[in-house]
């Protein structure tokens, strides 16, 4: 196997694939990156058994400046290989596999020889053939991921909650995540075949990595689902993830359909106020913020307090405060995560009682995105 390539482009692809490679894997060959060269081009593969990423560099695309000497495959230690490639001196580099998987890297007058491994020992990625592919706008998918993964559980005690529940039915994609203290739900309409139906749980970690590999020039992502795997194809990148097994809890019943107190805020303004109030609550063991809503006086105030440091009180800018008077306490961290997911918008917050979950929705479009937060009972 022998080729030369434009180094900047190669580095970019290496970075993409390296997201899947962990130095802590239990399978030694997975600390390596697989390079497979055919006449069509060069395929890079990295995997940690949960996530696998393939990046293809086409021989026909002249931008890549891929010159093929001879085809073949090799597995190279990912960390050393990419560090070397990044530091090579010239714009182009040449890679040649010699005897015993010894691999020579050359650029300008620099020459490295590193020990490779037999590519035949590298695990095969699953082949996911399906007619029922789902195409999603890349930016919408990125947003959906950002809005839901915040609510994914980080605790392994309930593995199912470490994933995002995706349900595809009747041209609608529903994504839900919850760690049992908060819940995030996003709905999307998709122009796809009406009889495509899926119900899967994708690890939150996988979605985060997927979102990071989606570069700005990618316009659409194609999703293919098999029994225990999902594949996302975005441009020249293929992203595989395992699915979580088990039944996701039924969550639709948890989102209240009515409320007794409603108020509207500008999301970034409220976020800034919550951040101020949580400066003190974070210092205390009791990370709690209290919110009082008094429609009669048209007053909304937050309070934070740390017995050791001091306390804070702030009257909040709001609009359309309506309903019953209420005093409610909550964990400001959940509120901050939720508010960040809205971006620059007006939101409506709806409460039913001090001990019931409350919801945050965009004022303009209340049907497609909801963040639910459970309050804190104080004694």
């Amino acid at each position, binding site marked *: 196997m022998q080729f030369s390539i434009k180094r900047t482009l190669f580095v970019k692809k290496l970075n993409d694939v390296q997201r899947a490679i962990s130095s802590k894997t239990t399978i030694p060959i997975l600390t390596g990156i697989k390079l497979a060269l055919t006449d069509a081009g060069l395929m890079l593969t990295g995997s940690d058994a949960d996530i696998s990423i393939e990046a293809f560099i086409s021989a026909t695309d002249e931008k890549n400046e891929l010159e093929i000497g001879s085809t073949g495959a090799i597995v190279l230690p990912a960390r050393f290989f990419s560090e070397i490639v990044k530091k090579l001196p010239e714009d182009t580099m040449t890679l040649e596999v010699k005897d015993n998987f010894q691999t020579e890297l050359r650029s300008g007058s620099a020459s490295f020889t590193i020990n490779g491994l037999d590519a035949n020992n590298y695990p095969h990625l699953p082949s996911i053939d399906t007619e029922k592919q789902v195409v999603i706008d890349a930016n919408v998918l990125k947003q959906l991921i950002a809005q839901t993964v915040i609510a994914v559980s*980080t*605790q392994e005690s*309930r593995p199912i*909650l470490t994933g995002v529940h995706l349900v595809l039915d009747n041209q609608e994609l529903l994504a839900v995540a*919850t760690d*049992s*203290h908060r*819940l995030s739900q996003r709905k999307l309409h998709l122009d796809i075949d009406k009889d495509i139906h899926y119900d899967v749980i994708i690890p939150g970690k996988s979605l985060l990595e997927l979102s990071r590999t989606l570069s700005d020039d990618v316009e659409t992502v194609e999703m293919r689902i098999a029994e225990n795997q999902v594949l996302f194809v975005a441009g020249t990148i293929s992203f595989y993830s395992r699915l979580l097994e088990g039944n996701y*809890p039924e*969550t639709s019943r*948890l989102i209240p359909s009515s409320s007794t107190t409603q108020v509207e805020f500008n999301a970034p303004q409220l976020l800034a106020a919550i951040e101020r109030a949580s400066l003190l609550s974070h210092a205390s*063991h*009791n990370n*709690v913020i209290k919110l009082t809503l008094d429609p009669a006086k048209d007053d909304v105030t937050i309070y934070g307090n740390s017995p050791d440091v001091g306390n804070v009180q702030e009257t909040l800018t709001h609009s359309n405060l309506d309903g019953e008077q209420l005093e409610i*306490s909550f*964990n400001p961290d959940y509120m901050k995560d939720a508010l960040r997911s809205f971006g620059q918008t007006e939101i409506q917050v709806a409460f039913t009682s001090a*001990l019931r*979950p409350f919801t945050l929705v965009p004022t303009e479009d209340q049907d497609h995105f909801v963040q*639910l937060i*459970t*309050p*804190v*009972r*104080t*004694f």
Partner: protein
Amino acid sequence: MTANLGLLQIPLTNDFSRKIIHVDMDAFYASIEEREHPEFVGKPLIIARDPSDTGGKGVVTTANYSARRFGVHSAMAAQKALALCPKAIFKRPDFTLYRQVSQQVHQIFKQYTDVIEYVALDEAYLDVTANKADLASAVMLARRIQKQIKQLTQLTSSTGISYNKFLAKMASDYRKPAGTTVIMPKQALAFLHDLPIEKFHGVGKKTVPKLHELDIYTGADLQKLTELTLIQRFGKMGDQLYRHAHGVDLRPVEYQRQRKSVGREETFGQPLMTEEQVQAELRRLAKGVAANLAKAQLHGKTIVLKTRNRDFETVTKRLTLNDYIADERSINRYAQQLWQDSGDLSKGIRLLGITLTTLNPIAFEEIRLPLFKSSNQR
């Protein structure tokens, strides 16, 4: 940090306004045993399991004054105590009884003040600056407490009275047993002046030789040193030494001292040999820990499992959780998990303990969504 201290003048302010009594029961456990067993009186008595029964293991919990004359003291190996005093009577400690008596004594304290810091079963600080008996004389109050303790329990105690905890403690230790010592603000420096360095509270076996190296043998020697020297040499403890040597100790009597951990442990005469036995005992301990937590209105984030096998090898394993727990079920679940991860039955289990730390008062509870039927505990 310390180098800059040369430029800093840390003010040494004192507070003479408080009246603090340190009450120390005299040879508490041994005296209770003498009360219960009049035949022990006048003989050297060591509260520890008889080393000939335990194969030489175990330590002295305490000893009566008669045994102390032979050089026996608490925390000494029981085997060594036996060598020093072969005629001594060994009595296995009965902590349930000691706790009962301690409770009686506490009831007496509470008649006079609520500002009480319990240091151990036999030791407490009382802030009597303002007291329920409206007595201006803390000395009279101390004598009255001692008299009442004697009447109710037939036990003697020693008290120290001063304007801070350190001096009160030094005073109670000055004349024992059944002593009452007062250190007035005017007398404090003179009292400390003559005090051997070993007597200073907080100066342990390891510090004494270091102080001797610096030619410090008494409070007077200590008083000559600058704060900077002591801090450079002994860190935080040096600062404390400096303050104490000058009769300064501003620590309050912590009558609401926060508990650091809540736990239960159990020693088994017959070591546990089966998985079922261990699981049953863990369930029992979890129940006890949950009860203690509920009583103290606390919940904790770190669970610690302690095991000891027949070879007296003790293993503790801990697990820190994301959420606070306090209920029996969770405590049992995580204790069982720790046991599954690290437990070893091959050498039997003679001690099991579950402790919850990283405690916090239950001031709030994060409400959970009812996602799973089984988790609907509330």
